[in-house]
């Protein structure tokens, strides 16, 4: 019993970090209506900055206080950059565009830390006293209490600031009604800036203070945003007190979960305690928060043009498919092995992005969990072969069917959740699936991955090890490339053509306005379920190909961070078009473009991520339709010249009412 209490108290450390990030999330939301996924990344940047200053990474060493001061200046600077570079220009953009912008910041910050400090985990210098205090006979490090105390003081301070200061009143007024606030002379831009700076300061401070407990890790620290979002959901993105308390409690719960995993009764996976319990816990907490506090976020009376990227009709679809097919066949044969591999990876990337085209581009729902569904297909395929001896083609068929079903099940439970909330839930789900299922060595691949032997049909090897290997004769086989290419082309034509079908129109109607769609007789629920099913089907196909591609399958390929990166690439390419998905596939991790840059110029994949994050923000600002969409619009504008004159003639007829009469009067 005493140990339970001890672990609960130890959990105050991470709890304080989560609470601090949650406070930052709430601040930004109240200030500008943005759910800032990069709040955890700010804590990470601050942690690394402090570490560098203290350990002399930049060639000089500072004492704790100056280092802390400079670190906080850096954190505030990051906040100012976010505000000026991304949030302010996107003030009137849709909530999803804002969310995507914060995703761009997260990816950029993470890639920057990876480039600057590498992947090894840094032990952050302790900043808090390392002494211990005795609590009812237990020895508890005093830093836990200091951390929890600090975050509580901050929360109380923020609540007081919001309640009694003119600034707090102004922010509350502006979030009620931005237009009215502007009329009485409040600048939403200034309010948003101050709130973002405060958020960065809080997240940065907690990042530095807590880093010595949780270690500096550029993969786990930015993802602390997920439990922080759970805490913020309990607070309805409004109450500082609740956000702080929920954050601390989540930290405690995670710590208790850790304690439980050391017990003999705890379920094990091949001798080790079951992995991913903490992520699963956070996911369940988010579900509870949504049910308890309502799935929709508090609305804001802001000036928003809720314009989403347009969804143009595909043109000359078959011609494009044939050209792309021929080019790829030639490339698969003549490319050296590494470029052949990169091309195949690009094609599979294009397929997984197509699943985003269906669900996000056509129906307007951001679902981060699609990549994890791919993973389900991949691991199912692998386990069907290794555990049940079911190979090609029945194995992948079952795997894809299971994935599609699972996707529909996810959709059934997420039907009432839409927009930004859906992104939050599916992010938590993706993280939980990654850690709980894929990392598990029985259900998933463990640390070494799970094998996926090459597919054979009638004794012919179709996998990467097949005998026809292109001109250079190295693996992977061009035959496997042809298989992937055929699947990519079929799905590409199918998804693009979907836009022209009646179902496609109804999807876009649902995306534009669920209410009006229902009034037009569209069964919104069914359309969403079918869209989730289709999208999961496509994701499942990609997952089986991923498994065959590397001959084995492991959790890292389907991680939540990879999923966020793919969504970024999808936006850059153009999330509403199949051509955008192809572009996204080409620029995604390990695909043709990054590989070429790496090979020819020695520019590593992390640079691609850094550039990708920045490109996402720029895309959202300059070309919300993505590269493919911008290209399409250029063509449209050229064509519009002719139509414009016809339109003008028609509108003058509407005015004149008697077109023939006017034309007779004229001469």
């Amino acid at each position, binding site marked *: 019993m005493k140990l339970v209490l001890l672990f609960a108290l130890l959990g105050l450390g991470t709890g304080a970090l989560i609470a601090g990030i949650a406070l930052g999330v709430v601040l930004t939301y109240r200030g500008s209506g943005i759910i800032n996924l990069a709040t955890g990344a700010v804590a990470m940047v601050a942690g690394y900055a402090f570490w560098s200053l203290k350990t002399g990474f930049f060639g000089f060493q500072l004492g704790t206080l100056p280092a802390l001061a400079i670190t906080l200046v850096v954190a505030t600077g990051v906040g100012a950059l976010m505000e000026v570079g991304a949030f302010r220009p996107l003030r009137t953009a849709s909530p999803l565009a804002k969310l995507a912008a914060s995703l761009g910041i997260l990816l950029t910050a993470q890639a920057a830390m990876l480039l600057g400090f590498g992947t090894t985990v840094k032990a952050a210098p302790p900043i808090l006293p390392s002494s211990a205090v005795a609590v009812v006979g237990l020895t508890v490090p005093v830093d836990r209490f200091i951390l929890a105390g600090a975050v509580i003081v901050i929360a109380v301070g923020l609540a007081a600031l919001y309640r009694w200061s003119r600034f707090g009143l102004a922010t509350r007024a502006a979030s009620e009604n931005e237009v009215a606030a502007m009329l009485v002379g409040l600048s939403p831009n200034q309010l948003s800036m101050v709130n973002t700076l405060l958020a960065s300061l809080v997240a940065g401070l907690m990042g530095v203070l807590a880093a010595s407990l949780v270690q500096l890790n550029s993969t786990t620290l930015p993802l602390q945003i997920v439990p922080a979002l759970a805490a913020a959901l309990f607070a309805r993105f409004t109450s500082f007190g609740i956000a702080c308390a929920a954050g601390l409690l989540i930290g405690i719960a995670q710590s208790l979960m850790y304690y439980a995993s050391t017990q003999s009764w705890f379920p094990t996976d091949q001798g080790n305690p079951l992995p991913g319990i903490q992520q699963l816990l956070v996911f369940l907490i988010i579900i509870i928060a949504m049910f308890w506090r309502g799935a929709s976020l508090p609305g804001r009376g802001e000036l928003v043009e809720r*314009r*989403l990227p*347009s*969804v143009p009709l595909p043109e000359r679809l078959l011609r494009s498919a044939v050209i792309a097919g021929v080019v790829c066949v030639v490339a698969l044969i003549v490319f050296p092995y590494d470029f052949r591999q990169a091309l195949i990876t690009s094609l599979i990337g294009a397929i997984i992005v197509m699943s985003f085209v269906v669900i996000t581009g056509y129906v307007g729902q951001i679902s981060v969990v699609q990549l994890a569904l791919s993973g389900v297909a991949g691991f199912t395929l692998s386990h069907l072969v290794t555990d049940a001896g079911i190979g090609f083609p029945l194995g992948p068929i079952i795997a894809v069917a299971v994935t599609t079903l699972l996707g529909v099940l996810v959709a059934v439970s997420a039907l009432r959740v839409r927009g930004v909330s859906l992104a939050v839930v599916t992010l938590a789900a993706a993280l939980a699936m990654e850690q709980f299922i894929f990392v598990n060595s029985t259900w998933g691949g463990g640390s070494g991955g799970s094998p996926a032997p090459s597919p054979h049909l009638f004794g012919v090897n179709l996998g990467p090890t097949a005998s026809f290997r292109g001109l250079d004769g190295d693996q992977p086989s061009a035959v496997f490339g042809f298989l992937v290419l055929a699947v990519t082309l079929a799905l590409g034509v*199918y998804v693009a*053509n*979907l836009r*022209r*079908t*009646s*179902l496609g*129109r*109804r999807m*876009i*109607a649902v*995306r*534009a*306005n669920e*209410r*009006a*769609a*229902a*009034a*037009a*007789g*569209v*069964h*919104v629920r*069914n*359309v969403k379920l*079918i869209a989730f099913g*289709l999208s999961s089907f496509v994701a499942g196909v990609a997952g089986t190909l991923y498994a065959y591609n590397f001959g084995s399958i492991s959790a890292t390929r389907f991680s939540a961070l990879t999923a966020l990166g793919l969504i970024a690439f999808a936006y850059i390419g153009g999330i509403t078009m199949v051509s955008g998905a192809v572009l996204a596939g080409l620029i995604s991790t390990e695909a043709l473009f990054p590989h070429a840059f790496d090979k020819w110029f020695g520019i590593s994949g992390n640079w691609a991520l850094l550039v990708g994050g920045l490109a996402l923000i720029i895309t959202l600002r300059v070309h919300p339709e993505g590269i493919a969409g911008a290209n399409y619009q250029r063509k449209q504008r050229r064509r519009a010249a002719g*139509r414009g004159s*016809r*339109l003008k003639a*028609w*509108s003058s007829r*509407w*005015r*004149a*009412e*008697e077109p023939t*009469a*006017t034309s007779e*009067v*004229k001469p």
Partner: protein
Amino acid sequence: MTGGERRILHTDGVSVSFGGVRALVDVDLDVHESQLVGLIGPNGAGKTTFIDAITGFVRCRGHIELDGHDLSSLPPHARAQLGLARTWQSIELFDDLTVRENLAVASHRQSVWAAVRETVSRPLASTTAMDETLALLGLEPLAEVLAIELSQANRKLVGVARALAAGPRLLCLDEPAAGLDSRERAELGRRLRSVVDAGTPTLLVDHDMGLVLSVCDHVVVLDFGKVIAHGPPSAVRRDSKVITAYLGSAAAELTDPSLESADEESRAGASEEP
């Protein structure tokens, strides 16, 4: 005037309250075949709430019947599929679809299986019904234009056309004339008349009496959620309760409502001279 004809919409004691606010109190309203029924009332009278109630977007008490079908317990899309079409006060077009596609979404009847099958089916060619609707509202030249590119007046018309495209048994229009200038209003009135004469009974909501009194067959007046008068335009126009409800600028307009539209037309003609 059309008491003998078939009753398309029949509501009996429709009531809606929002918390403490009683937005509708026992509203009985009938629309008969080939009738254009106007529903008027000052702002906040409950007109929009009435349309929301019959189309299933707010919960209500009372009985609603469309062409003999009891609608009371059906969700909005099911009511739409039984032939109840509506527009909104703020126009809610599907911005990323062309005008024709906007109509095509509405003209579609579906089952789950049909929806699954359609994931692979060929695109729908333009149907004659859709072309007729476009022609009726004079929208053919705009058929391939994206909804987002339209002018305000045209967006209103496309909203009406989309509601019509399903071939509804009843058309409910919520303030289709709001935001239009007086010439566009008169033109809209003419188009609506031709829609009704072509066979679609219509419930027209407006807060301004001019349009409604000049084109409707039958007028119902709401105030504070209650029906305070109903009857042919000529009778409603003289009703003292109605004049009180509309006291102010509208009262002056009531003294000679026919003048406005006649005046409009002569001015329209005058501005045409080069």
